[in-house]
């Protein structure tokens, strides 16, 4: 009886030892994917620090997986985590590796990440014009959403700083040109909240506070990527409310106020000028 039990234990142990490497290899990739998707979830609800922690865990798991069992998937997840952590050169290498293991878009993604990384370096070195041209190229050409959104963010920052120094007609003309560009991006990717946030900012520069308000509401409803942008967007909504109170006729103001009250109630604000986080 005892020897039968020992045999069973031994065979179970053997089976476990044979299957363990298989389980562990599956689990690193699965873990990497799990943490990556957690990171995306946290980003969507403005938990930036938690998102960064999840992307770091995804990167650790994907790195182990890529070392032990290199595959296109392992390198792709690794590259995506690196991209979210703004590790441009590492992300480029990972996508190039993913391509060499059969991921078709890997080469294109690696090229675009490399351009983005170069543009960021140029901008940090003070060569903003050259950086701006590269961002502009990526906005027009890239079908890779994270790269396109990051390039748009940087391009609009640089362009708006230039526009702030302009005056009169020239300023208006440049603002409209910038607005058309972001509208084009937004029409290709309607669910991207960040493009609505950017449109809200540009409308605000143009003094169109009603449209700025509408875009900011849309951005808030779709969910913004970072907490500071989320808060800035809320303060933009309050600012538009203040400006519209000054600008609108009594009848239009009444109508706007009732709409505004509904939104504020929905968001759980303390009052019409105090967001819940304040």
């Amino acid at each position, binding site marked *: 009886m005892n020897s039968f039990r020992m045999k069973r234990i031994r065979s179970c142990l053997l089976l476990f030892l044979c299957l363990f490497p298989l389980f562990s290899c599956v689990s690193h990739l699965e873990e990497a994917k799990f943490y990556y998707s957690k990171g995306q979830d946290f980003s969507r609800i403005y938990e930036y*620090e*938690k998102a960064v922690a999840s992307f770091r865990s995804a990167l650790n798991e994907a790195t182990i997986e890529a070392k032990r069992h290199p595959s296109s998937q392992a390198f792709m997840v690794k590259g995506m985590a690196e991209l979210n952590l703004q590790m441009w050169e590492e992300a480029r290498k990972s996508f190039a590796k993913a391509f060499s293991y059969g991921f078709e878009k890997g080469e294109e993604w690696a090229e675009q990440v490399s351009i983005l990384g170069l543009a960021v370096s140029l901008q940090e070195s003070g060569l903003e014009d050259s950086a701006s041209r590269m961002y502009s190229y990526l906005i027009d050409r890239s079908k890779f959403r994270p790269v396109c959104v990051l390039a748009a963010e940087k391009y609009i920052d640089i362009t708006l*700083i230039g526009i702030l120094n302009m005056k009169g007609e020239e300023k208006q003309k440049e603002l409209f040109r910038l607005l058309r560009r972001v509208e084009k991006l937004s029409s290709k990717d309607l669910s991207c909240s960040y493009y609505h946030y950017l449109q809200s900012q540009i409308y*605000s520069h143009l003094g169109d506070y009603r449209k700025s308000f509408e875009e900011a509401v849309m951005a808030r409803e779709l969910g913004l990527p970072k907490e500071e*942008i989320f*808060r*800035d967007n809320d*303060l933009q909504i309050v*600012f538009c409310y203040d400006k519209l109170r000054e600008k609108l006729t009594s009848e239009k103001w009444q109508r706007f106020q009732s709409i505004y009250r509904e939104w504020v109630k929905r968001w759980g604000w303390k009052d019409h000028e105090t967001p819940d986080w304040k």
Partner: protein
Amino acid sequence: MKRKEIEKAIDGGFRILSEVFPLKSNLYFPLIYSTLVWALEKQEEWEEKIFSWEIWPDPGFVRTKPDAFILNFFGNNKSLALNFKEEVKEKDLKTLRKSFECLYPILGLKDPFLSCLFFEELKSEDYKKIVDNFEKRLYQAKRQLKTLKARPDLILRLKNFAFNASSLGLNILSQSKVQSAVVGLVKKAMKEKDE
């Protein structure tokens, strides 16, 4: 909760930090306070939160806000408007924009770490002093944070401090009361160290 227990808890945090930071470091108060707040909120990502602060206070979009938004920001806050009375009246956007870049993350976006870093100035509503000292103090704080980052042993002890503090029932007090208690005790501890 008894005052002695709070004193003991904060003193523990102070002793940990004094091993790495120079005397009269500006970082004592923000680090102890934010450690306590995040511990009370049961934030597991306490470490991430502290070190993400290295990048948080300088979001690019602050530099590109419209002029009207900046004027509204200074005009809508009574004590801000008083501090910048002349600049608002003259619509001196060059000065206002520069000041906005320092004050908006604190007063607008409500960054907890920066609020502690400039606690004294905020309390006395001396906003121009914040603008004058902003870059220097920020640079110092970032440099000191890097020193802390390089000492995982201290981070671990600070984590334990946060854990102990959270079990003391500090959450009975409001955040502003904790803030006042911390600032008083940190000052007292620094004075003792001076003597």
